[in-house]
């Protein structure tokens, strides 16, 4: 891991906790001795708008932003947002995809149409090598609090990386309010232990580099 950079892109909607989740990914990288950079946007962009955060781990990282076509892991908290940032994924990269759908207001008052699940999966499958599909909201809700959905997603992400899960748990417990520690731990473990469906995308695997 030390010799190459790992790029993450977290995508969600303002209010979904994208920035906190990406802080956790960044802190985990630092805690295992890697150089880390992270970039995000605040202010106007956060009010229910599309939100992304880039995180990069490596021996020495220059740009805090990932380049399009180079992201190893997209962590999408919402289906439309997975599609919106898909051009950042490298060929055969991995997408951790929550099945949550938040139609933007343009699809309510206007004529925009929210893509259906099959469309999203087909488009993501065109480039991804692997999709981890999960209903993070449902899993978190089942554990007692839907706000823990991001910990579920981070658990799923952690299963794909060669990092001690304790490093993840220690950062998560440090970053969330004390009263939510236990539930977040459970949510992370549920995500890590594979309450997801793995979709291998044959299109992308054939042209994987």
């Amino acid at each position, binding site marked *: 891991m030390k010799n190459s950079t790992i790029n993450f892109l977290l995508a969600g909607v303002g209010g979904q906790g994208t920035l906190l989740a990406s*802080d956790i990914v960044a802190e985990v990288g630092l805690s295992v001795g890697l150089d880390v950079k992270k970039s*995000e946007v605040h202010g106007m962009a*956060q*009010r229910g*708008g599309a939100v992304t955060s880039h995180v990069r781990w490596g021996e020495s*990282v*220059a740009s805090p932003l990932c*380049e399009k076509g180079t992201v190893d892991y997209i962590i999408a908290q919402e289906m439309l947002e997975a599609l919106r940032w898909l051009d950042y994924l490298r060929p055969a990269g991995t997408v951790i995809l929550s099945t949550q759908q938040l*139609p933007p207001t343009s699809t309510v008052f206007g004529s925009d149409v929210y893509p259906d699940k099959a469309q999203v999966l087909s488009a993501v499958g065109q480039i991804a090598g692997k999709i981890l599909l999960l209903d993070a909201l449902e899993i978190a809700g089942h554990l007692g609090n839907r706000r823990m959905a991001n910990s579920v997603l981070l658990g799923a992400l952690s299963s794909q990386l060669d990092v001690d899960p304790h490093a993840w748990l220690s950062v998560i417990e440090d970053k969330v309010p004390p009263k939510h520690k236990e539930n977040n731990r459970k949510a992370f473990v549920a995500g890590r232990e594979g309450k997801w469906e793995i979709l291998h995308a044959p299109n992308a695997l054939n042209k994987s580099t």
Partner: protein
Amino acid sequence: MKVLMSGNEAIARGAWEAGVMVAMAYPGTPSTEILQNVALYEEIYAEWSANEKVALDTAIGAAYAGQRAMAAMKHVGLNVASESLFYASYTGVNAGLVVVTADDPGLHSSQNEQDNRHYARFAKVPMLEPADSQEAKDYVRRALELSETFDTPVLLRSTTRTAHAKSAVVLGDRQAVGKRPYVKNPPKYVMIPGYARLRHPVVEDRMLRLRHWAEQTDLNRVEWRDRSLGVITSGISYQYAREIFPTASILKLGMVWPLPDEKMREFSQQVERLIVIEELDPFIEESVRQLGIQVEGKSIFPLVDELLPEKVREAAVKAELLPGNGSHAAPAVGALPRRPPVLCAGCGHRDVFWVLRKLKVAVNSDIGCYALGVLPPLDSTDTIGCMGASIGVALGMRHAGLDKANVAVIGDSTFFHAGLPALATAIYNRTPLVLLVVDNRTTGMTGHQGNPASGETLSGVEGARIDIAGVSRAMGVQRVSEVEARDLAALEATLREALKSGETCVVVVNTVCVFVASYARQAYRIVTEDCNGCTLCFRIGCPSIFKSEVLDARSGRQKAWIDPASCVGCGLCYDVCARQAIEPGAEKVLA
């Protein structure tokens, strides 16, 4: 110990380590978190000022009095504070003064993407530009030392991608910096023409000495690699240069004004092809070209919008600086529904814009969350310029005989920032004006900071709350009304009367930002059998209202559905529904 810090957190830490005693700001993206983090260090007196000019004047006063000081603002905030920057350039400081300007290339949250490096040249003060959080922290101390050595304010420029990027920082201890004695010295600190005239040559001499210093400082460093390509760059562009041209030699400028002419010349002579990578204006490039050096910059890289790694690569491939690389081609996804930011569920601005839309008046709006009333479906704004511009523009439209009624809309924080002088102008000249001050008790868009109307201070000490209606009356407004945003009928009636009056009118619309105090009521729900999918409630643009899967039998249209998890129970949809198909009392789903 290494910790992960944003550029803004690092600047705050740098201020603490460098012994800063006094710091102030007006919130503005991407600078806001600087002062919020400074306020966590109890050794530093930190406050929100009513605007950036006041912030800078206050910091200047602290520096005159002998304590290291900092003022922080976004790029357009420095426009407001620019008059103060210019006199401070003449007077110099005493103790160190650093002025942080956080620029926003790409306009993530701004009305323009001006390049504030020009202010350094314009005001004849040095400017440092960090490229990551470590430098952001370290450069605060360097800026303060430079400020004291050369008796000048020093600008520290960040951009969105350094301010809001996190990287590892090695922490240091706080430096003990004694208070410098203040000595009354009118020829230095009193800028009447007779004295200011004498200060101008001092400033010019200072610039000459700074130019010499720029050649020597380690803030500007050369990284020698392959000499077939040389890159001059600074700030975040340096990181993109490292990423896209890993084998190129780089002259990395930590000080972007004044520029090290000789160093640039020497560098240029030792590389085969010379390029400048910089965001926005060709600031460095033009200076290099003025030296008679052949250089490329904006002929390759875009002038408009922020640079991104892929943009730098794409431009470089086009200019044959790099071979083409097919693996970076993006898959085609097609057009997707846009997801612009929207007013929050329960936001009182939605009530205001709903009524204004109904009245069909021209709306001169201002800077704040109410900019989210611009886009459809609310679509009820004619103009937005800068902080406080709503009132002046509204007055100008009246003087020009606009053929329909117009109203100015401003928020509580913006009213105190730049609204007061404009209101005074209207009152003084007896100009008809309908001014809506929408008081949501916070500075919303930047993340809910206190302001003179909320009375909440940065330090947490209870401040004074200035009453907007009271201020308006004291200034001489005869027609001052106060209405609740949720009372649509009263709001409409008050506005109609005000528009008819032909007087200078202030309507204070009381509401509370949903982040400050949430509604304790239950969520609303659609009575599905009564809803006919008329779309009226869709047109308030509430992010909690969706199209359901249930179709109306007659019209075939999708009926509405309210998400009980995100609905805060404001009741605007209930008010606008023509069929009483919305009712309160849905079980609130705990998020």
